[in-house]
Structures are given as structure tokens and as C-alpha cells.
């Protein structure tokens, strides 16, 4: 059994247990949390290196052979996602040191953060549909508590909506998993891929795939199922918003890409066209929603929706190049979006508000921060040579290659509107003279400013590095996409011993 496949689950779990035991000692909690996140990041790096070198890794838990036991599988796509989860966990754990209030720290913020990371990693690693449901629930329950923790009015209102929509999605997912078992008689993903390729009632399978599409679509915040996201993501503390924005919807996208490349490929002409149409609508509605907003974090929340459209677009086009684009886009997006949320936290702390009207003059006061904002903001809009430009370039090339001109035009138009949104934030928060009554108080940053700025600087530097040296990540995405499009290797790796 491959121990390294279990470590991304064990490390956050152990960290959370230690944190719970150390509830009394705030300083111990803070450092254990950072150490745990660091360990997860290290293991994730090792895992990616191992998968890159040795191909798909498989662990049969309890040595029950697949498809009877629970299988953990790491192909390149999984390993990339786990690395990103580790990176974001680390960035947010450090950022929390300076931004989290003692009240929330005492009521279990750090253990919840690590349980959330465990749920996310579990969802990325599992090779079993029902197990995926369980990991989704682990992730959801901890995210529910993280969002409500603190009990402010806006938080509770946001949480009611978030919980409701996510529970509906879980109920649908569960029903879909049950029905899938009724049709195929197995829930192991690799075995499902084999069984469903022999099923004669493709209509039934396609109907089931649409049920999965709705369930994962709610989690990924796709059109027209995204309304819970802008109603809730701006309510919790910034550190929580940032990890949610970076990781949670992407778990939905991951699940979509996994099932629609491995399992539901019987009727690509229908299912993937639906995905492509939804992708276009998601991009457009998200970005138009953002245009109408006047609060820093709400604009960013709507942009998450719009960006999800690009990731699904690659899946809908369903060529090696398009999936490469999707994977590259996910990598770029998680880093950039988390960073933008972290920056919105700093301006919120300095200016005391999220409302664009009440902020201003940050360029004069903090030119360095302004530059740090511009890097991820321009990257999000797709200005060369930043990471977002390459991500969009790959997707648009893939679209042009298939002569899907409508989606290409939509993607380009949405880019332009994204740039508009970002310049709006720039003009209001950074460029405009300081509005009356606002005193940018340096003291509010407090002694922990290093912990606030370190993750922001690191992520911005990463955005630059990705933009300037595209080749390695492009290679990585290409190989991950090739693995996704040739499920035979995945099936062989999981079921190899039993056939």
C-alpha cells in the first residue's frame, strides 16, 4: 500500500486533533496550525513528484481489492489539486495568524480549517463515488461551521442559504449515486467506467449524468445554480472567504471533470454540448453580476462564478488541448482568486469597509499594496504575460481549433468585462482620492503585518513566475489532460490486480 496517498488525509486529521486538545493554549494552536499546513504542503509536493515520475498511484484501503474496497487514487490531476489545496491551506493558515480574532480562534477556527482541508484532499483522492459523497460532506460540514463561526447577522443569513443549497445538492448527489449503483452494480469509478461502457441503455446513463451535473453544478456554482455563492461568500472573515473562494467551488469542478472524462463518456455529443452551453452562460452571468456590484468582496465573488465558466468550457470542448486549458486555468485561478480575497482583507482592515464608495487613496498611502493588487487583478483579466493570459490563450486556441466561435467570442468578451471590473476596483479603492472621513490607519495592521503580507507577496510572486515560465506548468497540464482522456491507464492502475 502506498502510504503517501493516505498522508494528505492523516496530516490534517492529526493536526485537527492536536488543535482540539490544545484549545486552551492559543499560541500552541497558531503554530501547530501553520506546521500542519506546512506538512500537508510538503507531502503534496512529494506526491506530485512521485506521480510525475511513476505514473498513477493507487492504495487499496485495508487491502480489500478494488472494486470491493475503498480505493484512493492519485493521477496527475488529483496530485495537482492536492498541491493547490496544500498551498492555499498554508497561505491561509499564515494569513489567519494576523487576521483571525481571538474569539473565533478559541471556538475552534483552526481545527475546522484543517478538517476542511482533509475533506478537500479526500475528495481529490478518492476513487469511489460514495466515498466522494462522504468527503463532500466532511468538507461541507466544516465549511458550514466556518461560515457561521462568530454568529454575526450577515454570516447567519448567508449560512442559511449556503447550507440549504448545499444540502439540496447533497441529496441529489446521493440519489444519483444510488441510482448509478442500481444501473451499474458498482461504485468504484474505474469499475464504473468499465461497466457503463457495456450498458445498452445509454439514455438512462445520460439521464443519470445530468443528475450528477446538477448536483456538482450547485457545488461548482454554475449557471443557473450559483445564487448561493454571492449571497454568502462575502460574509465570513476574509481568511475563510479566501479559502472557500480558492478551493470549495473547485472541488465541484474537479468532480465534474472526473466524472465527465472517466465515467459519462457514452454520449459526448449531448452531455458535453450541455456543459459547453452552461459554461458560456456561467461566464456571462457571473461577469454581468459583478459589474453591478459595489463591494470589493462581492465583485470578487461574482468573478468566481464567471471563472468557473472557463474551467467548464475546457471540459465541454473535450479535446486534449481544451482539458489542458481547464487544468491550467484551475491552477491559475486558485492562486489568483485566493490572493485577491487576501488583499481585500488588508484594505478592509486599513479602511474599515468593503464598500468601494467608502474606500480610496490606497495608491498614495500604500503603493506596494497597489502593485500587489495589480498582479492578480491583471492576471484574472488575462493581461500578458501573467498566468491568466496563458490559461485563456490555451482555451481559446482549443475553441478555435474546433471552430466553436461562439464560445470563443464569449470567453473574449467576458475577459474584457473582467478587466472592466478590476479597473473599477482599482479606480475606486486605490486611485481615487481618500474620501472624507476615511483615515487609513497604519496601526490597524497591528504587529502581525508580516503574516498578512507574506502570503500575498508569495502568491503574487507565484503568479508572476507562472506567467514568465509557462513551459513546465503547461507540460504538467498536458500530461494531466492526457491521463484524463485515456482512462484505460487509470482503470488498469485501479483494477489491474483483479482482472
Amino acid at each position: 500500500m502506498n502510504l503517501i496517498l493516505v498522508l494528505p488525509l492523516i496530516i490534517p486529521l492529526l493536526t485537527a486533533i492536536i488543535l482540539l486538545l490544545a484549545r486552551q493554549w492559543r499560541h500552541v494552536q497558531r503554530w501547530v496550525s501553520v506546521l500542519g499546513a506546512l506538512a500537508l504542503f510538503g507531502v503534496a509536493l512529494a506526491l506530485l513528484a512521485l506521480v510525475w515520475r511513476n505514473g498513477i498511484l493507487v492504495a487499496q484501503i485495508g487491502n480489500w481489492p478494488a472494486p470491493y474496497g475503498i480505493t484512493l487514487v492519485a493521477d496527475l490531476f488529483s496530485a495537482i489539486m492536492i498541491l493547490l489545496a496544500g498551498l492555499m491551506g498554508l497561505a491561509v493558515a499564515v494569513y489567519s495568524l494576523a487576521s483571525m480574532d481571538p474569539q473565533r480562534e478559541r471556538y475552534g477556527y483552526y481545527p475546522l480549517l484543517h478538517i476542511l482541508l482533509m475533506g478537500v484532499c479526500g475528495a481529490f483522492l478518492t476513487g469511489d463515488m460514495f466515498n466522494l459523497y462522504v468527503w463532500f460532506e466532511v468538507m461541507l460540514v466544516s465549511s458550514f461551521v466556518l461560515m457561521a463561526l462568530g454568529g454575526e447577522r450577515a454570516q447567519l443569513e448567508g449560512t442559511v442559504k449556503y447550507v440549504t443549497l448545499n444540502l439540496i445538492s447533497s441529496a441529489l448527489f446521493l440519489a444519483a449515486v444510488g441510482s448509478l449503483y442500481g444501473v451499474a452494480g458498482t461504485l468504484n469509478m474505474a469499475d464504473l467506467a468499465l461497466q457503463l461502457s457495456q450498458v445498452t441503455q445509454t439514455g438512462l446513463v445520460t439521464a443519470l449524468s445530468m443528475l450528477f451535473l446538477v448536483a456538482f453544478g450547485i457545488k461548482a456554482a454554475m449557471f443557473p445554480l450559483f445564487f448561493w455563492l454571492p449571497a454568502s461568500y462575502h460574509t465570513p472573515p476574509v481568511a475563510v472567504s479566501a479559502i472557500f473562494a480558492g478551493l470549495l467551488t473547485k472541488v465541484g469542478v474537479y468532480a465534474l471533470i472526473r466524472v465527465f472524462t472517466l465515467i459519462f463518456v457514452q454520449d459526448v455529443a449531448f452531455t458535453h454540448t450541455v456543459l459547453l452551453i452552461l459554461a458560456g452562460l456561467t461566464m456571462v452571468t457571473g461577469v454581468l453580476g459583478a459589474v453591478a456590484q459595489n463591494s470589493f468582496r462581492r465583485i470578487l465573488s461574482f468573478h468566481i462564478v464567471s471563472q468557473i465558466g472557463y474551467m467548464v468550457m475546457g471540459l465541454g470542448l473535450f479535446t486534449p488541448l481544451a482539458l489542458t486549458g481547464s487544468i491550467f486555468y484551475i491552477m491559475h485561478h486558485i492562486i489568483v482568486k485566493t490572493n485577491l480575497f487576501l488583499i481585500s482583507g488588508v484594505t478592509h482592515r486599513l479602511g474599515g469597509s468593503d464598500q468601494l464608495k467608502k474606500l480610496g487613496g490606497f495608491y498614495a498611502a500604500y503603493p506596494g499594496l497597489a502593485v500587489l493588487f495589480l498582479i492578480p487583478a491583471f492576471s484574472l483579466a488575462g493581461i500578458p504575460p501573467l498566468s491568466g493570459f496563458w490559461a485563456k490563450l490555451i482555451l481559446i486556441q482549443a475553441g478555435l481549433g474546433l471552430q466553436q466561435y461562439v464560445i470563443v467570442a464569449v470567453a473574449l468578451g467576458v475577459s474584457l468585462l473582467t478587466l472592466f471590473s478590476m479597473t473599477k476596483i482599482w479606480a475606486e479603492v486605490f486611485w481615487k482620492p481618500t474620501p472624507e472621513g476615511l483615515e487609513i490607519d497604519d496601526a490597524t495592521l497591528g504587529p502581525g503585518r508580516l503574516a498578512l503580507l507574506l502570503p500575498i507577496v508569495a502568491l503574487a510572486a507565484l503568479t508572476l513566475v507562472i506567467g514568465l515560465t509557462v513551459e513546465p506548468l503547461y507540460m504538467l497540464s498536458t500530461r494531466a489532460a492526457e491521463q484524463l482522456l485515456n482512462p484505460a491507464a487509470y482503470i488498469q492502475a485501479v483494477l489491474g490486480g483483479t482482472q
Partner: protein
Amino acid sequence: METFLAFVIGGLYAAGLYLMLRRSIVKLIIGLALLGQAANLLIFTVGRLTRGQPALIPFGAARPDGPFADPLPQALILTAIVIGFGVQAFAVVLIKRAYQTVKTDDLDDMRSTDTN
């Protein structure tokens, strides 16, 4: 039996969705619970119903005689019930806190986060 259960499941889904469309947060939570139960029954039914045939292997044999009830859907439902129970317990506490903070049980009055 399957036909009967199909109607029960349909009824549960309908009742759950109807309750969720009401404005009261209490009905919302009851509706969510019903949806979960409907999903559980659905798994039970599509996993094929078999009466009085436990999946027990007689001593010395390698497999049970004749047709037997598939234990896997039952294991799935058991897990789903436990998860559902935990989540619903959280949801009940959440609506209590939301009611205390917002001072209303009307979902239409919980819209302050939708606009700003």
C-alpha cells in the same frame, strides 16, 4: 412493492420541495430532512428489493445459496442516515441562532446579504 415505494419516494420529494418553498425556516429544515429520507429510500429501492434472503454464507460454502439481498445499498443508507443526522442537527441549531439574531423566521426578511 417497487411501485408502492416509487410513489412513497415521489411523495417525499414532493412534500420536501413544497416545504422548502415556504417562507418559514423551520419548514425549510423539515423539507431538507424529507429530501434526505427520499434519497435514502431511493437507494434502497433501486438496489433491488429482496425479501427474507440475508446475504449469509452457509458454513463450508463459498457463496450464499440462490438470490440474496445486496448488503451494499443498506450500508450506503446507513452511512447516509448518520451523515444526514449530523447535518440536520447542525441545521436546527443554525436556524435557532439565525432566529435569535435576525429576530424573524421569515426567509423573505433574510435578504440583507443579497444586495450589499
